[in-house]
């Protein structure tokens, strides 16, 4: 299965003179029953729930960096509050792109990210409640086959810049209201399925595994990343700062190296 669903280091999508094709197979609905059993064996999932809303281009310009947004129209005060959201790309060789762990500091969950699509696929957000109930929304995205990145084969430079973080909170601050924070971390997010020209084999997986966000020492969100999240992982999300303070993030890669950053929100 992995064999023909290759992530290729250089963005395939990017190399073509023009992209978008009527010749693609559409997103394949037959993949989901298999993927579903792998992740949620025997568990019922309520589909097409109106309170999980996904936004993405119908046709992605580049499979390497597909903009994807999730909004949940409920808060943690809701009786059936969603605690975790899994992002699954049916047709990717590694389907789980990310898992978001929610807290009340987020208010109504609203997050934009960028994901990789190997080919046309359904992309799903599955919300899980504290007692294990599952709710799902899905969206079909056509992608010009590529889970790539930039053309940069300089290993030393890639390693040296990996883990650099930029974080920003939208100004002016409005305390007690949803406020947008943007987080980007420099990282190749290697899938383990990309060709290495030197060894003729595959480059080992190398990716950010996790990021923990806290505001004034209180948890805001934890993200478990998979390699379906694009190179240089990007998150823009709302949270509700009660007062002025400091947003801190600690990220860790799959080799155990950790990176941290903080940004202040002034009154």
């Amino acid at each position, binding site marked *: 299965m992995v064999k*023909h669903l*290759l992530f*290729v*280091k*250089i*963005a*395939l*999508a*990017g*190399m*073509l*003179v*023009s*992209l*978008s*094709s*009527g*010749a*693609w*197979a559409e997103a394949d609905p037959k993949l989901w029953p298999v993927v579903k059993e792998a992740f949620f064996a025997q568990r019922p999932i309520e589909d097409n729930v109106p309170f999980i809303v996904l936004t993405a*281009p119908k046709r*992605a*310009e*580049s499979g390497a*960096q597909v*903009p994807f947004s999730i909004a949940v129209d409920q808060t943690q005060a809701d009786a059936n509050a969603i605690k975790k959201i899994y992002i699954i790309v049916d047709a990717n060789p590694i389907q789980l792109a990310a898992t978001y762990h929610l807290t009340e500091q987020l208010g109504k969950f609203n997050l*934009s990210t*960028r994901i990789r699509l190997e080919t046309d696929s359904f992309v799903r957000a599955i919300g899980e409640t504290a007692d294990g109930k599952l709710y799902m929304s899905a969206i079909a995205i056509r992608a*010009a*086959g*590529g889970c790539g990145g*930039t*053309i940069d084969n300089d290993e030393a430079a890639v390693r040296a810049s990996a883990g*650099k973080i*930029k974080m*920003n909170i*939208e100004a002016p601050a409005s305390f007690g209201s949803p406020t947008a924070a*943007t987080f*980007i971390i*420099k990282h190749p997010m290697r899938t383990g399925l990309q*060709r290495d*020209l030197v060894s003729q084999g595959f480059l080992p997986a190398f990716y950010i595994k996790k990021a923990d966000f806290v505001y004034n020492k209180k948890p805001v969100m934890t993200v478990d990343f998979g390699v379906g999240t*694009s*190179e*240089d992982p*990007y998150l*823009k999300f709302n949270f509700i700062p009660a007062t002025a303070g400091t947003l801190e993030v600690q990220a860790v890669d799959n080799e155990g190296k950790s990176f941290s950053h903080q940004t202040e929100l002034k009154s």
Partner: protein
Amino acid sequence: MSALIRLLLLLLVSTSVHAELLFEQAAPGVFVHHGAHQDLSEGYAGDICNISFIVGSKGVAVIDSGGSLKVGQQLHAAIRKATALPILYVINTHVHPDHIYGNAAFVAEKATFVGHAKLAGAMEQRKEAYARLNQQWMGDAFAGSELVKPVLEVADTATLDLGDRQLQLQAHPLAHTNTDLTIQDSLSGTLWTGDLLFVERTPSIDGDIKGWIAVIDRLKKSTATQMVPGHGPVVKDWLSALDREQGYLKRLLDDVRASIKNGGTMEKAMETAAADEKNNWQLFDIVNRRNVNMIYPGLEWE
């Protein structure tokens, strides 16, 4: 004659017309075929870029071979109509699939394949993905289109002799792609830019926008009498063509930088960046959006 037979005859005639590539003679011994400004979604059959051959007193050089074995064979047939001289070199201006898959038609001629020093590696990295995509786009029309890599690799400059005319090859740093090569013919002064220059068709970025803008500055100092772009007509007033292209790229770069600086989003910038260039280019909506998607994440780190 029944209408049906007439229709069938017409179809036969039009098929045979399509089987032949049309070439203009841009200078003595310089032949250029212009592919269609067509998106890959609309019946792409491997013939969208410029394909050229140059005839010297000793032999022939091909510059870009088209997107399939079939197009390469049509190019081969056109060369054989013009001359019986040996085909000495097949030069690829960069790695994109519309420019390289006709190479297979020249293996039997024992031509020397020529490209940028990074071309063979880039071909290898993209090989499987390109094979899959070409199959989707063209189906049977892609049959037999083996990927043929360069054996003569140009890291900086090189000279090829065709007899009474030399080709000066120049490799460029990361710009349109990481494999851009330009070729100048000593006899006519014609410069082949590959996709470093797009005329009419929206320039598409697969390398580095800043690097490309810098390489255009270098091309502006050219001594060429005319330029053959990767797509679009041969231009005598190449300075204006380079200016137009650079103008678009600079506008795009400025708009994306402004979006990042002002806390905008990539999604929004895909709608708005360089939008007033729309009427200057073909296939703008598709290519410009993808350009934004390509460059935005990298520019966030400036």
